[in-house]
């Protein structure tokens, strides 16, 4: 018996760990994140590096935009090259500051419109591999962030907080299959539920063939569930066809918020009354 176990220890250990992993996965599928001590350690180590890399990429992009068009400069320009270089660098820093200022002004104006406290945060990492759609931000429990807080931009709902560390948090984006939002069609007031697909699209479920919905319709959150405030844009219909089951429609949406270009977001930290509108 002992020699059998020794001979097949790799397979036995692999199988035992497989079953253990499957058990963890099946109990964890909806209990997203939770308080995992190893997650805190990993976040504490990884988030400063992610922040540093993102800043470096921003500087590289700024430098590339400034200098790529200087390659074929004339003799007269060569004489003035030092002055131009200094001015371009200064101009570029001012442009970046202006763009950042515009984005933050929009966010601040939006924050002042919403009826409740909110915290602004920077995106420091986006997870887009396979089917998972999450993003990391540079605010955590020390800034008042808690699980299940809604995350928004001026264009619409981004997602909700699923994991909180002292100085960082993780957002479950609306395009993740685990993110479901109760919505209403703005025009016809048809109710449904959106679900992420693991790609850059959402699907709208439980809309019947005879319901009034068409391409271009905007979907807003209904406020049910107490996580997402009422009246925020979730997405826009770009495909609506009759489903194969001859009862529900097959509807695809694009998210309201531009998830490919997320840089700053707002986290709504106040208590959300399920039916009261945000704006």
């Amino acid at each position, binding site marked *: 018996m002992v020699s059998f176990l020794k001979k097949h220890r790799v397979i036995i250990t692999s199988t035992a760990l497989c079953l253990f992993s499957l058990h963890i*996965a099946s109990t964890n599928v909806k209990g997203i994140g939770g308080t995992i001590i190893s997650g805190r350690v990993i976040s504490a180590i990884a988030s400063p590096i992610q922040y540093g890399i993102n800043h470096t990429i921003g500087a590289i992009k700024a430098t590339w935009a400034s200098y790529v068009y200087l390659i074929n400069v004339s003799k007269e320009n060569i004489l003035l090259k030092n002055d131009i270089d200094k001015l371009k660098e200064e101009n570029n820093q001012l442009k970046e500051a202006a763009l950042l200022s515009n984005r933050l002004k929009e966010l601040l104006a939006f924050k002042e419109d919403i009826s409740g406290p909110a915290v602004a945060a920077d995106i420091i*990492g986006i997870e887009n591999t396979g089917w998972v759609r999450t993003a990391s931000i540079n605010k955590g429990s020390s800034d008042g962030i808690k699980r299940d807080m809604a995350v928004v931009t001026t264009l619409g709902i981004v997602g909700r907080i699923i994991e909180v560390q002292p100085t960082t948090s993780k957002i479950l984006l609306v395009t993740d299959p685990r993110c479901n939002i109760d919505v209403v069609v703005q025009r016809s007031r048809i109710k449904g539920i959106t679900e992420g697909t693991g790609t850059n699209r959402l699907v709208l479920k439980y809309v019947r063939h005879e319901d009034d919905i068409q391409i271009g319709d905007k979907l807003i959150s209904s406020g049910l569930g107490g996580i997402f405030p009422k009246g925020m844009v979730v997405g826009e219909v770009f495909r609506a066809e009759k489903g194969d089951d001859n009862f529900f429609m097959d509807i695809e949406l694009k998210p309201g918020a531009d998830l490919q270009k997320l840089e700053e977001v707002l986290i709504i930290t106040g208590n959300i009354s399920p039916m009261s509108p945000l704006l």
Partner: protein
Amino acid sequence: MKIFTIYLVLASLFLIIESTILSILLPSLLIPDVILIMVFYLAFGNASLEGVLTTFVLGYLTDVFSGGIIGLSSFTLLLIFIITTKLSKILTLNSMLIKVGGTIFISIIKGILTYTSLRFLNQEIPFYIIFPIAVSTGIVSPFVFALINKIELYCIPYKGEDKIISRY
């Protein structure tokens, strides 16, 4: 323990790069699964308890880092590890075809396992995303194999040479 440490550090670095640089440079469906390539390489030369535990930890690290379902990546990667240790008895990583083709095959198997597990856990994802990820993973695999090989040679010179002989 050295193998475990090397793979843990490499996987952590890759996961950071994936969430910052790669997510900007590449569309999401073309980001290669480097963790899978590492497990594939590990299974070919280190079918031992250390390899099993390393695979389990790499899967756990992937899930914690990405915010996915904890345990899912460990489950699929361990199955891949078992399949690859069986395959390593009849194949060696000595040709480009085996490296690229084998990685694409294993990536598709992992995609199917992930899809099936998610369906079992009542989560739906599109099936087609498996294939572009498998192709990009296959294309990148020879470079990742070469990198891991060099790092192993540097950190574990004597054992590394043995590994080269046994794998190539």
